[in-house]
């Protein structure tokens, strides 16, 4: 058994860290304050290859492997959770299902552009009446000759404001039991009948664009069907399994960034004539935060490693997310506590980390859904 990262994984960490420090960190506070997506950084992210890590080399990506990918998400989140979720939604939720379930024509049509960053992807599952209970979605796709006619309303779509390609889930068989009648489609933004609504004003990850997306008699060619008819729900669930590792990595990175700020501050801040790092109250918080991070990292990398080796990883991914998401909120909260009053202000990035961390307990499966998945596997 080895817990060592490979050379490539170590170098990936250094490379993404260099990028995050030099290019992401300087605008992180500003995009948060202005609720603005960091579109100016997308070309540089594409050039670095951050948008093609889940796509094989022969289709224009880097095929870096899941561990390198989660390390990249973690390193982005260490500086800015919004950058991390843009990459995560694009890579895990749009590129990945097209790689896994697309046919060769769909691979050629979409993956080189997505992997190279010429196009950005999004994932449309959630509806106003179908959040955690995704199988109850009501968007519909009706056959009309060799076309599909799509109608429905999606909400909370990450990257919605600027995505070019949407993987959309809709009911193709109203007669079938709820999960069975759902199919997946690849939809281009330009298609007539697609409307993107105003972005949400959010507690955190304010640099990620979260919008409603609606379809009104949107006509798709038959070739837009991703996978088989009726396979949609399975595709969504498999996609979210992988996404959970990515969100765990995002949570981990947010916590790591907050932790580092707290440690640096504790060493410098003088109270009672010496650095507060000399106080046991602070030392204990640092110890707990470091242990939390170590545990989260092991769970997250283990899930990624299983996925990379094509082994069953879904339960480990749920566990990684169930541990890392609350851990991230906890560590960010402790970081604020270490900084005290200034930690509660925008002078330091820990208040942003705290707000950003909260979403990781909710999206791509709430803590409660993860517990459901895990307990089912244990009580079988």
């Amino acid at each position, binding site marked *: 058994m080895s817990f060592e990262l490979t*050379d490539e994984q170590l*170098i*990936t960490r250094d*490379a*993404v860290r260099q990028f995050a420090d030099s290019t992401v960190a300087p605008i992180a506070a500003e995009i948060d304050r202005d609720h603005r997506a960091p579109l100016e950084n997308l070309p540089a992210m594409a*050039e*670095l290859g951050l948008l093609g890590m889940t796509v094989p080399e022969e289709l224009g990506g880097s*095929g*870096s492997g899941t561990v390198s990918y989660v390390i*990249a998400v973690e390193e982005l989140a260490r500086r800015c959770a919004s950058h991390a979720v843009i990459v995560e939604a694009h890579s895990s939720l749009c590129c990945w299902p097209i790689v896994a379930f697309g046919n060769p024509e769909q691979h050629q049509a979409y993956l080189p552009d997505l992997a190279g960053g010429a196009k950005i992807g999004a994932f449309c599952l959630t509806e106003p009446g179908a959040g955690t209970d995704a199988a109850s979605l009501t968007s519909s796709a009706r056959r009309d000759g060799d076309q599909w006619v799509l109608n429905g309303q999606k909400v909370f779509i990450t990257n919605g404001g600027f995505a070019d390609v949407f993987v959309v889930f809709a009911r193709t068989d109203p007669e079938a039991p709820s999960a069975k009648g759902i199919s997946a489609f690849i939809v281009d933004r330009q298609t007539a009948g697609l409307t993107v609504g105003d972005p949400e004003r959010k507690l955190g990850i304010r640099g990620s664009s979260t919008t409603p997306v609606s379809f009104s008699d949107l006509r798709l060619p038959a070739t837009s069907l991703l996978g088989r008819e009726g396979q949609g729900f399975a595709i969504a669930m498999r996609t979210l399994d992988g996404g959970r590792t990515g969100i765990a990595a995002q949570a981990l990175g947010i916590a790591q960034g907050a932790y580092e700020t707290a440690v640096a501050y504790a060493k410098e801040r003088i109270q009672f004539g010496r650095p507060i790092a000399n106080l046991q109250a602070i030392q204990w918080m640092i110890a707990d935060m470091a242990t939390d991070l170590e545990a989260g990292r092991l769970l997250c990398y283990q899930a990624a490693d299983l996925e990379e080796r094509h082994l069953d990883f879904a339960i480990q991914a749920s566990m990684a997310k169930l541990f890392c998401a609350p851990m991230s909120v906890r560590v960010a909260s402790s970081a604020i506590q270490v900084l005290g009053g200034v930690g509660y202000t925008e002078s330091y990035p820990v208040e942003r980390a705290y707000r950003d961390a909260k979403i990781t307990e909710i999206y791509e499966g709430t803590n409660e859904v993860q517990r459901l998945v895990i307990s089912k596997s244990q009580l079988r």
Partner: protein
Amino acid sequence: MTIAVAYKWAPEAQEASVDAAGRVDFSRAKDKISDYDAVAIQVGRRLADATGQALVGVTVSGPQAGQPVATKAALARGLDSVLVLAEEGLDRIGPSATASLLAGLVRQLDDVSLVLAGDSSTDVGARMTATLLAGRLGWACLTDVEQLDWSGSDWSITRTQTWGVETFKVTGPAVLALSPTAAAVKAPGMKDILAAGKKPVRPVALTDLGLERPDQGETRATARLTGPSRQGVVIDVSDPDAAAAVLVAALRQSGLLVEGSQE
């Protein structure tokens, strides 16, 4: 034709500490390709592509520089291959020794048109390695190079000195030390990182080069570097204007405020 880049896998001096006896402790400093060398590699890649040459890294250090993670980190930044002299006792050798061994490595390469180097190295900071290497090779040398291009018949080199901006041309083989401003260093891309593992690494031993371990003298003592002893006069600042008056009077009395233009 080949462009060689001298690089170093060395600890980041910003993370070093010094103990009471003056021993520099790099144990908490992580080894990396220094920012200076990253500039040289990036400029080298651009020139190699523009002139159809191979870009080969040369490095001299302890065994850690020969580990795959070190050579891959260098290759991921754009080198086509690396020639590595990594032996026990060769880490943290001084610029004189480094330059003589780098010259041995450059001589192993055929048809070298340029050797590029960073302006400084991360753990030593003497800014002399490139000039000593040029001396060993007997080649032309310029430092502080900010712009470097192939005109079709010669290398066009621009640098800024205090007296102005100089442009030179060099035809023959040369050693050029690049200013940190010569390129905005980019992180290695994801594809480059994976490609690095497939590029050739040629380990070389001192004996292959027919070179001896360079004589660096015998270290007799180390000490903390403290500079001149300081007076340590603490000025009460409860009234800032009074404190300022006290300081200005003291500086004036020491002759430190003599009027005169800057040199």
